[in-house]
């Protein structure tokens, strides 16, 4: 499930799921729902995002920011996601997380889509990627 939460100047976005991947998927939906009525987006086209990061929380931020990048450059907005995350371990306790996300959505159509407010970026503020009682939570504040 996804939800937004209170912040004085900006908005918090949160995704919860049985897996880390589904928490990421839901968090992305939460962010998209801040920008637009998410139900108005049809999954007409798909796009694959591949990202790497040294920790899960930076991976979440990169994933969300990549969706904003695609909105501004390709004018594409996505509403459904299939995320895969892989963890590799190296020497000296170094880790690397790889994300592959297939995103489904369509080109922005101002006649069809009802926009609420633009999101500038995902931030480190209240950034949490954790597992609580078997439920994975992925959240942060987005700057609007």
């Amino acid at each position: 499930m996804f939800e937004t939460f209170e912040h004085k100047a900006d908005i918090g976005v949160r995704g919860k799921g049985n897996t880390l991947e589904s928490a990421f998927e839901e968090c992305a939906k939460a962010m998209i729902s801040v920008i637009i009525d998410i139900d108005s987006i049809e999954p007409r086209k798909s796009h694959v995002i591949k990202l790497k990061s040294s920790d899960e929380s930076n991976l979440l931020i990169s994933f969300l920011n990549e969706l904003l990048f695609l909105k501004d450059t390709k004018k594409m907005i996505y509403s459904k996601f299939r995320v895969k995350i892989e963890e590799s371990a190296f020497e000296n306790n170094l880790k690397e997380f790889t994300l592959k996300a297939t995103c489904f959505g369509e080109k922005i159509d101002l006649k069809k889509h009802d926009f609420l407010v633009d999101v500038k970026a995902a931030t480190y503020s209240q950034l949490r990627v954790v597992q609580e009682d078997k439920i994975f939570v992925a959240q942060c504040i987005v700057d609007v």
Partner: protein
Amino acid sequence: MKIRKIKKDIYSLEKEERMNISPKIFANQEIINTLKRDELKNQNNSLNQLKNLSSLPGLKGVVALADIHPGYGAPIGSATASDLREGVITFASTGFDINCGIHSLVLPITAKELNKKKKEFAESLFKDIPAGVGVGGKLRIDSTQMDELLKGGAEYVVKRGYGKKKDLNFLEEKGRIKKIDVTSVSLKAKERARDQIGTLGSGNHYCEIQEIEKIYDLKSAKKFGLIQGGTFVSIHCGSRAIGHQIGSDYLPILDSAVKKYGININNRDLVCAPFNSEEGQKYFSAIKAGTNAAFANRQVIGVLVKRSFEKVFGLSESEVKTFYDVGHNTAKIETHKFEGKKRKVLVQRKGSTRGFGPNNLAIPKNYRVVGQPVIVGGSMGTNSFILRGTKEAMNETFGSTIHGAGRSMSRSEAISKINGEDLLKKLFEKGIVIKAHSTKGLAEEAPLAYKNIIDVVNTMDLTNISKKVAKLKPIICIKG
């Protein structure tokens, strides 16, 4: 946390734990009470952020202004001055919306004359100024041109036919910060900005046509060329997506820098790098490039307003005067006095306007004797103000002052309490024409969601940090 009263409307947050400096707060009793209440209620409160910010190394000064409210990491309505050798450049003190600010114009007609064609002008502006989510501008910039734009700022768009050279005299830094390494900005950031120069954006960004309702200080108003009953234009926006992408690109770089240089930060929101490090210098250069993009963006929108005005009122666009342009999310090297000694420092202002006192060479010649104009944007449907910078600001706040009213209600609270359509109707009854790309988004920016701007402005006036010159009343508001 302990707040000590220094004198009327000036307080200090007492040093504790890891704080390196005791920040001054310019606020009235009511604002202080709200800050204290908020401290008990929310973890993410302004005082806690101010405390964390004051724990960074190499600080020469930290101030909070009357419009203070929680941001991420640094409170909005705050400014820091950092030593160039010992200090850091902090992400949260400039933020994603690099050089967000206000560009302003004086129209050559009275409010009475403007009111006769109010609706027509509003329609025309709404059509001519690209705004809202996913909307691009007419000015397309290829990758070579993008580097020129980042180096040239407003000067670059003037060369491309947007405005006159003389306009540049009335922009902070003359619309261009020099010495930029364009490789500090990623190709992604440049790509994201390609069709965004000359667009308003969304959220709290707006273009407002205002009546100069009241003059407080005749002498300064005369120098500024403002008369009661005249008309004024405020364009509030920033560097758009290039600033957002620069921020997104540098967050992980600064995150690593904190570990690399072993900087003690109380909160991940405060990621930073030593100013005098490779990461710090690169980030500073990227901020400067973003700053120039914002100057260029606002200059283009200013010209679009001038052209729209010419179309509707039949007066030449050259009769519209560029009044001033000043940012409120910035990072700059400035010279200020600390402990009696002049020194160069890195000044970062987050939701804080530069407000230099009289006779400073950075101020346009025509305005110099009275001080720098400070444009304080109201919330939708409320007054805005023009203030002037003072000698006291130079001594007390390293030339920093307020930028707006400051939020008092969260966005979701505003949406649950306020209906966008009702709000439009109410404002229309007050004679204000609002044209918005999203009525749902409108409720978030309702006047009720903000502090009372008059209290905020009066606090700065009373403490002599910025003096009131004129009060503006909205006539037309174009929202993203």
